[in-house]
C-alpha cells in the first residue's frame, strides 16, 4: 500500500539521501512526520509526549549546518523517537507510570546525547508498559498502544510504542529497551526489525532501571541497514555506566553485505516444539531456508535447559526491580500521597497510588524471593540456573556462529487477551529471555504475515560482542524475504 505521504515510508538511508541531495529540508521532513503523528496517534496511542517546537528548532539548526557543509553526520536532521524510560534534558520522563508524574530530569541519557551529537531530531517519547514491565504495552498508565497491523491486537511490549510508531511510518527509527525481549517481541508483532545488543555494548546511563543486570538499550527500524546504522551511533564506551564495555567497537553497517556463506547456524530444537503456532513455524522455516540458500550450514542443536529460562528470568528480574523501584517513595521526585503525617504511611500510600497492578505484583514477587527464608530457595537458585544457561549457550557458540529461532510462539495477541493471566503474559517472553540472561545480542527480523495479516518474526542470536555476525545474518534474511512496508491501518 502506498502511504499518502511517501516520506512516511522513507528509511533512515532514504531520508539521509534526500536531505543530502536537497530534495527536502529537515524542517519539511519533520513537519510532515509531526503532522502525521498528530493526526494518527489518537488511534494508536504510540506516543506519550511530542515536542514539535523544540524539534522544529533543532531541524532548522540542522538545515543551516547542512547548507554550510557542517552537518555533524549523514543522519543530521532525521526524526527519531525514544522510549519514555530514557532521560532527555528538560522533557518529562514518565516510564508509563503515574509515580513519575511531572518529573523533568535535568540531563540526557548517554544514548540521547549520542543521537543529538549526530544531529538526530528527537520528535517525542513513546509509550511503554510501566517501568518496562509487560509484554503488551497494556500496563501503561497512559493507556494501551494498538498494533498498526490490526488495531484490536497489542503491539507487544514493553517497547510497544516504539515498535508501533516505526511500523506505522511515524518515524524511520526509534530506540527501545530490552530486559527480557522488550525490543524483539514488539518488533516481531509489528513487523519491524528490533535488536538487543550485548550487555555492556550500549550505555545504560540515563535509562531508568528495571533489572540492571539485564537491561539494554537498542534500536528499532524498518530495515536491517537502519538498525545497523543506529547500533554504530549508540554503541560507544561510557565511563558513566560501570557496566559499559571498553572493547573497541567496529562498524556494523560496513560489513552487512558480507553474507553468511560458510557460517554454521544452530537451530535449537526446543524453540520449535509444542506451542509454536503453525503459521509462525512455516514463516521461520522459510527464513531458515534463505540462510541455507545464502551458503550457511543450518544444523539442529539442543539447548535443553532453556525451558528453565523464563522462571529464572521472573525471579531475577523481579528481585532487581523490587530493589531498583524502592527509590520511588514520594521523597525525591514524582508523586507524593501523604498519609496521617507518618513517614512509612506516606511511602505506602504513595506507592499504592503511583504504581500500577503489574508493577506492584512484581515488586511483591521480588521482595518475596529476596526475603529471609526464601533467598536461597529462589534468588540464589535462579542465579545458579543462570550460570547453567550461560554454559549451555557458550557450548553452542563453540560450534555455531549464530542461532536461529522464532521470536515469539504466536503472532500478536488481542488486547485484553492475557492481561488478567500473569503467567500467560510472562510466557510471551519465553523465546527471548535467554539472550538477556546470557548477555548476548539478538535481533528480530520480519519473515512474513499470517493469514490474518499479522507479522511473524524470526530471531537470530550471536555470541557476546558479535553484533557484526548477527546483523550480517539479519541482512541476508531481509534481502531474501523483503520488508513488510507500512500497513494500511487507517481503514
Amino acid at each position, binding site marked *: 500500500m502506498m502511504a499518502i505521504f511517501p516520506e512516511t515510508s522513507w528509511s533512515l538511508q532514504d531520508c539521509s539521501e534526500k536531505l543530502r541531495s536537497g530534495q527536502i529540508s529537515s524542517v519539511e521532513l519533520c513537519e510532515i512526520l509531526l503532522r502525521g503523528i498528530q493526526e494518527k496517534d489518537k488511534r494508536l496511542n504510540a506516543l506519550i509526549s511530542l515536542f514539535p517546537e523544540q524539534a522544529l528548532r533543532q531541524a532548522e539548526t540542522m538545515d543551516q549546518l547542512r547548507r554550510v557543509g557542517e552537518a555533524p553526520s549523514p543522519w543530521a536532521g532525521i526524526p527519531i523517537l525514544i522510549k519514555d524510560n530514557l532521560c532527555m534534558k528538560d522533557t518529562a520522563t514518565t516510564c508509563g507510570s503515574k509515580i513519575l508524574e511531572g518529573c523533568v530530569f*535535568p540531563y540526557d541519557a548517554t544514548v540521547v546525547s549520542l543521537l543529538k551529537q549526530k544531529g538526530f531530531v528527537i520528535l517525542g517519547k513513546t509509550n511503554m508498559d510501566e517501568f518496562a514491565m509487560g509484554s503488551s504495552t497494556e500496563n501503561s498508565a497512559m493507556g494501551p498502544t494498538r498494533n498498526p497491523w490490526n488495531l484490536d491486537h497489542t503491539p507487544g511490549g514493553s517497547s510497544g510504542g516504539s515498535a508501533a510508531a516505526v511500523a506505522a511510518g511515524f518515524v524511520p527509527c526509534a530506540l527501545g529497551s530490552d530486559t527480557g525481549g522488550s525490543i524483539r517481541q514488539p518488533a516481531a508483532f509489528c513487523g519491524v526489525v528490533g535488536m538487543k545488543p550485548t550487555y555492556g555494548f550500549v550505555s545504560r546511563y540515563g535509562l531508568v532501571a528495571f533489572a540492571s543486570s539485564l537491561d539494554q538499550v537498542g534500536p528499532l527500524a524498518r530495515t536491517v541497514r537502519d538498525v545497523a546504522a543506529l547500533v554504530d551511533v549508540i554503541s560507544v564506551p561510557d*565511563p558513566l555506566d560501570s557496566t559499559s564495555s571498553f572493547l573497541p567497537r567496529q562498524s556494523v553497517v560496513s560489513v552487512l553485505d558480507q553474507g553468511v556463506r560458510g557460517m554454521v547456524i544452530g537451530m535449537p530444537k526446543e524453540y520449535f516444539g509444542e506451542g509454536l503456532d503453525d503459521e509462525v513455524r512455516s514463516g521461520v522455516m522459510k527464513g531458515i531456508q534463505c540462510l541455507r540458500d545464502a551458503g550457511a550450514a543450518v544444523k539442529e542443536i539442543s539447548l535443553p535447559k532453556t525451558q528453565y529460562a523464563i*522462571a529464572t528470568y521472573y525471579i531475577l528480574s523481579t528481585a532487581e526491580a523490587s530493589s531498583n523501584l524502592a527509590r520511588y517513595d514520594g521523597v525525591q521526585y514524582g508523586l507524593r500521597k501523604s498519609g496521617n503525617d507518618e*513517614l512509612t504511611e506516606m511511602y505506602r500510600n504513595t506507592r499504592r497510588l503511583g504504581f500500577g497492578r503489574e508493577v506492584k505484583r512484581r515488586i511483591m514477587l521480588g521482595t518475596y524471593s529476596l526475603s529471609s527464608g526464601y533467598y536461597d530457595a529462589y534468588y540464589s537458585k535462579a542465579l545458579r*540456573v543462570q550460570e547453567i544457561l550461560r554454559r549451555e549457550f557458550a557450548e553452542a557458540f563453540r560450534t555455531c556462529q549464530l542461532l536461529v529461532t522464532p521470536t515469539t510462539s504466536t503472532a500478536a495477541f488481542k488486547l485484553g487477551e492475557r492481561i488478567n493471566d500473569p503467567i500467560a503474559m510472562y510466557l510471551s517472553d519465553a523465546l527471548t529471555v535467554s539472550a538477556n540472561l546470557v548477555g548476548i545480542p539478538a535481533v528480530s527480523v520480519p519473515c512474513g504475515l499470517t493469514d490474518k495479516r499479522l507479522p511473524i518474526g524470526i530471531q537470530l542470536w550471536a555470541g557476546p560482542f558479535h553484533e557484526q555476525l548477527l546483523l550480517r545474518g539479519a541482512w541476508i534474511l531481509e534481502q531474501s524475504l523483503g520488508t513488510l512496508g507500512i500497513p494500511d491501518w487507517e481503514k
Partner: protein
Amino acid sequence: MAEISMDEVRHIAMLSRISFSDEELERLRHEFRDIIRWVDKLHELNTEGLPPGADTETCSTSFRKDLTKPSHRADVWRTLAPWCDEEGFKVPRVVE
C-alpha cells in the same frame, strides 16, 4: 513451597512499602501461589557446586580515575521533589 498464607503476603507488602486492601491481598495470594508453583520448576535442576551466575565474559567493572568532577546542581534536583526547602527534601516528622 506451594501455599502462601495471608500473613506472609501481608509481611511482603509491609517489606515492599505498598498499602493494599484485604481484597487485593487475597488476590495476590492466589496469584503468588500459581506463580510460585510455576517457578518451583527450577528445583528440578541440580545446582550444587555451581557459582551464582557471575558474568565475566560480557561484563567486567570498568575502573576510572578517582577525580572530582562537576555534578548536577543540588538546587535543580530539589525542584523535582514534591516537598523541599533550601536545605533539602522534606518528609513527615519521624522523631517527636
